[in-house]
């Protein structure tokens, strides 16, 4: 095995067993660093980092944790990730955290923040209201004030003042991390036979669990090695995947989708950690730069409602830019943002004559035969048309 393959299989196994093991192990080695859990989708991690703490992604529990307590708190029609996150807390699996942050992404996630507050009084539970008015000239000011409030709260927790200088350094660091992840995605888009979606996913996901410096050096070592791969492309259709920006599908499902006959040229997995298509400026007022980047230079998403341009147009553009021939909608079961978006996407894709397949998943799912068969059928219908 090459060093990349070694690395990949080690991290894959760890993520499959329990996505948070990596963090727990890290915390054991660094007991003095405070950890803040970041629920999906997007968190301005720079603010946490600049306060001397480590932001980590709390993005569900995978498919090996039994939900035994949380389902009496959240009903059957609420998505898996809300319940699995609460289950992690109720079973004491989040004890390594000092705080956790939720955001205004959807109704269940908002209530989950309150439920966390009541059930875990020792944990600092923060909540960010991200603005949904993208056209008012006053929105950036509002978001700056929101970030200032958050910063004060994190300063109090860490006991460390967040200086402009520290914040600029954190922005530069996360810029570097996001840039490398973009490189990874570019590599896959150019020659998907050289980097599988699952490999790309694992490499991105560990970035939500490790300090950015560590992740950066892993990517810096991996990318040149990946550039040396020269696999022959298989006879597969090329697709863009959309709808998995919050709850994450099991690794086996991600792998299975590609194995069923497609190359996924782009996706919205772990979207909040890839929120900016270009660097956030490091000169000037760093808080304002962060806020302005959110309003004016962030990716489109089911949890952001930008009336300046229809969401579906962004998806169509992405299909055209990547040269994909179809779209795979992979929405978490009961995820209202993704399921609502689908109605608009379907309409736009049909208008453009772009074929698509819509699948639902749950992070806790174990059986993938049906999804795989559906993708195979879809692929065949396109290949032998």
């Amino acid at each position, binding site marked *: 095995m090459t060093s990349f393959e070694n690395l990949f299989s080690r991290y894959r196994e760890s993520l499959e067993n329990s996505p948070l093991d990596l963090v727990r192990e890290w915390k054991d080695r660094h007991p003095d660093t405070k950890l803040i859990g970041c629920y999906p989708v997007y968190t301005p991690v720079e603010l946490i980092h600049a306060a001397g703490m480590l932001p980590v992604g709390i993005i569900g529990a995978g498919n090996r944790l039994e939900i035994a307590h949380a*389902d*009496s*708190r*959240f*009903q059957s*029609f*609420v998505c898996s990730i*809300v319940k699995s996150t609460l289950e992690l807390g109720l079973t004491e699996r989040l004890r390594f955290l000092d705080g956790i942050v939720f955001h*205004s*992404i*959807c*109704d*269940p996630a*908002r*209530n*989950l*923040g*309150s*439920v966390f*507050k*009541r*059930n875990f009084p020792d944990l600092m539970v923060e*909540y*960010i*209201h991200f*603005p*949904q*008015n*993208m*056209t*008012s000239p*006053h*929105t950036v*000011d*509002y978001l700056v*004030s*929101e970030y200032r*409030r958050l910063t004060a709260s994190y300063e109090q927790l860490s006991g460390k003042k967040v200086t402009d200088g520290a914040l600029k350094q954190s922005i530069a660091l996360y810029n570097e991390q996001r840039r490398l992840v973009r490189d990874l995605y570019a590599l896959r888009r150019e020659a998907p036979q050289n980097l599988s979606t699952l490999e790309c996913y694992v490499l991105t996901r560990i970035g939500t669990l490790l300090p950015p410096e560590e992740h950066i050096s892993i990517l810096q070592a991996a990318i040149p090695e990946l550039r040396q791969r020269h696999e022959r492309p298989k006879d597969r259709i090329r697709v863009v995947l959309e709808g998995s920006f919050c709850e994450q599908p099991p690794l086996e499902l991600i792998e299975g989708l590609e194995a069923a006959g497609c190359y996924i040229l782009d996706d919205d997995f772990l979207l909040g950690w890839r929120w900016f298509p270009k660097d956030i400026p490091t000169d000037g007022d760093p808080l304002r730069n962060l806020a302005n980047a959110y309003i004016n230079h962030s990716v489109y998403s089911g*949890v952001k*409602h930008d*009336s300046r341009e*229809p*969401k*579906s147009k962004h998806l169509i553009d992405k299909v055209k830019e990547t040269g994909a021939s179809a779209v795979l909608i992979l929405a978490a*079961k*009961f995820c*209202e*943002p993704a*399921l*609502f*978006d*689908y*109605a*608009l996407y*379907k*309409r736009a894709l049909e208008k453009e004559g772009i074929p698509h397949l*819509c699948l639902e998943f749950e992070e806790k799912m174990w059986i993938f035969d049906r999804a795989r068969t559906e993708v195979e059928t879809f692929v065949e219908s396109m290949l032998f048309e």
Partner: protein
Amino acid sequence: MAQAAEAVKTSYQGQMHLLQKDMMGRYFERVTRAAEQGEGKAVYMLISGNPVELVQAFDLIPVYPEIDALQLAVKKSALPFIQKAEELGYSMDNCAYVKADVGLFLGDRKTPFATIPLPALILCNYVGCNVYLQWFEHLAEYCDGQIYNLDIPFLRDPSGQPSAEDITYVVRQLEEVIEICERISGKKLDYARLKDIVRRSGETGEMWSRIKGLTKNIPSPFDAYFDSVTMMAPLYCLRGTEEGVRFFETALKEMEEKVRMGTGPLPQERFRFIIEGPPPWPYLRTFRDLFSKWGAVAVASTYSTVGGLWEFGFRHDANRPLESIAQHMLQWNVTNRNFLQRYQQIRRYVEEWHADALVIHSVKSCRLFSAGQGDMREYFTKELNVPTLLIESDIEDPRYFSEAQIKNRIDAFFESLEHKKMVHAAAEAGGAV
């Protein structure tokens, strides 16, 4: 059990109900004239913390897709619209209010109660509910209409209050909405008129709050869930108008009279409960009768505070019209308050309205209300020792209402509550001897 066996059918018709029917009839005629004769312009808005005062100030017509959807459900005509939306790609698991409305919107927009006009403005007052954003985003895309997302920061500070920055942000946006309304209506804002409207909203809030306080009486003069919903439509569609003020004067007088007479909505009030969650509109009457037969009266409800929460003291202030509209949107409605603030609201109801129990009606469509209600039940039963019943159905989709199942749960709950009361009474009597 013996006393409960007979089903009690509730009589709905008071003066207030008749007046409501009359006024809402005229409102829907106005809506229909806008659609069919182009008379007036419609502004689509959402119920939660609605800023109807602004729309009234320009003589624009407030149209609430939620009210249209609930009317469809009450009139048992929602399902074909829901199914139409599902054929277009909406999921079984999406909010059925949205689906019913989308099904209606993409057709000829004719309903048994009104024809719905196309919007001159889609004003998405994002007050708590995230589905609102999706809903109006979709409508805007379907009609290529003008949309403005009026973003209301959620109450997230431990103080439970909005920050000064939150208030400024909302006021600035209200000013932008005024500019848009000026363009649409072709007239400048008459500030004195806006102040008058806001003053009337203040008066309405005062009367509504007094009406709600009356259910602290034993017996309660009306049902704070099933009768309150009758008063909610005028509260949202006519707030700020003379007609609206007249409606609430009449309602207040009627309810005060009932208190003097010692009468309530049922022949005998045997249980007082608080109810949390929206009603099952397609089966409202059936649902009400399941409680009535036990002599159970709702004395307070969270649902009646979706559009605004007045009973804890908030009043619109004509001297600060925009700030008070902003405060109403930010702080004085249940939907923009965090889930734990809702626990405290219910707790106050239980204590100050002298309730025996809490009933949680969990609806699939509205996750803003329902997601996490199991934790709420845990809090009330384990920490406060309040008997709590959790039942599930839906606000709009008739396919989710299982009468037999709900009836069993309600009967079992009140049976056990009755037993507890008996044991308690016996213990008290024993203690006295």
